[in-house]
């Protein structure tokens, strides 16, 4: 029955959005971490979403699948501060390529999308319970 499938669909949407929220949290938390080499520096992470045409569902509905998490290849911020304890031999420290403003916008978008999915599941629940009460007085 297709009303039950709505729970799968919006559930997959919720878990995808929570992955997105998770990466955003990790990006913001690490926005100010400093390291002494390019390789050790944290890079901004973003999930890649993909529509999941499930075999079990009818061919028209699709859940969301998180294909993977990719690291941003934007250039790192390099800062000259020879007095920093983590500075390399030339006096540079490396900071992550996290754009905090972008991440904040991302966070709001993710939490709104999550909310929408919750409301859809809630509406489906109401529809189902009304259907189960059909014919009762």
């Amino acid at each position, binding site marked *: *029955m*297709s*009303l039950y*499938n*709505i729970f799968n*669909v*919006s559930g*997959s*949407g919720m878990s*995808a*959005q929570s992955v*997105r929220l998770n990466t955003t949290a990790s990006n913001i938390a690490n926005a100010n971490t400093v390291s002494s080499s390019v390789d050790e520096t944290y890079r901004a992470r973003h999930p*890649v*979403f*993909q*529509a999941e045409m499930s075999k079990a*569902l*009818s*061919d*028209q*509905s*699709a*859940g*969301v699948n998180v294909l993977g998490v990719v690291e941003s290849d934007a250039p790192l911020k390099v800062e000259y501060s020879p007095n920093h304890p983590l500075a390399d031999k030339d006096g540079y420290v490396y900071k992550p390529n996290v754009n905090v403003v972008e991440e904040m916008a991302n966070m709001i*978008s993710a939490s709104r*999308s999550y909310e*929408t*999915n919750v409301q*859809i599941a809630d*509406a*489906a629940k*109401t*529809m189902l319970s*009304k*259907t189960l009460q*059909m*014919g009762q*007085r």
Partner: protein
Amino acid sequence: MAISLDKAFGIHQHALLVRSERAEVLASNIANADTPGYKAKDIDFADALANAQKKSGYSMSKTHEKHYDLSIDINTSGKFRNPMQPDTGDGNSVDVQMERNQFMQNTMEYQTSLRFLNGKIQALNKALSGGQ
């Protein structure tokens, strides 16, 4: 049988099925609002209802065990939505606001069909109990 439940319930039982199908399609549009390349879909209600009333799908008869199992599903009335804006940057054509309103409307229509069905059942009940 003297009482045909199928006839008594009329169009509403089919409408209910199509509405629940449409709710699922709209839910997947909303779930995929951030998926790159996803195209919003919808069900042509009149088409789907006509199909559901005709009979739920048909299949070809097999006269040999090596024949392919060929059946035609009723779910062929799914269509892609015309996007409101030409380009969203990532090939996604979901307009969340519109989808939400469509979902809300579909929910109300579902409950209307349900109300009609309930009325029919209550009428049958009344007839069976003789109004007592």
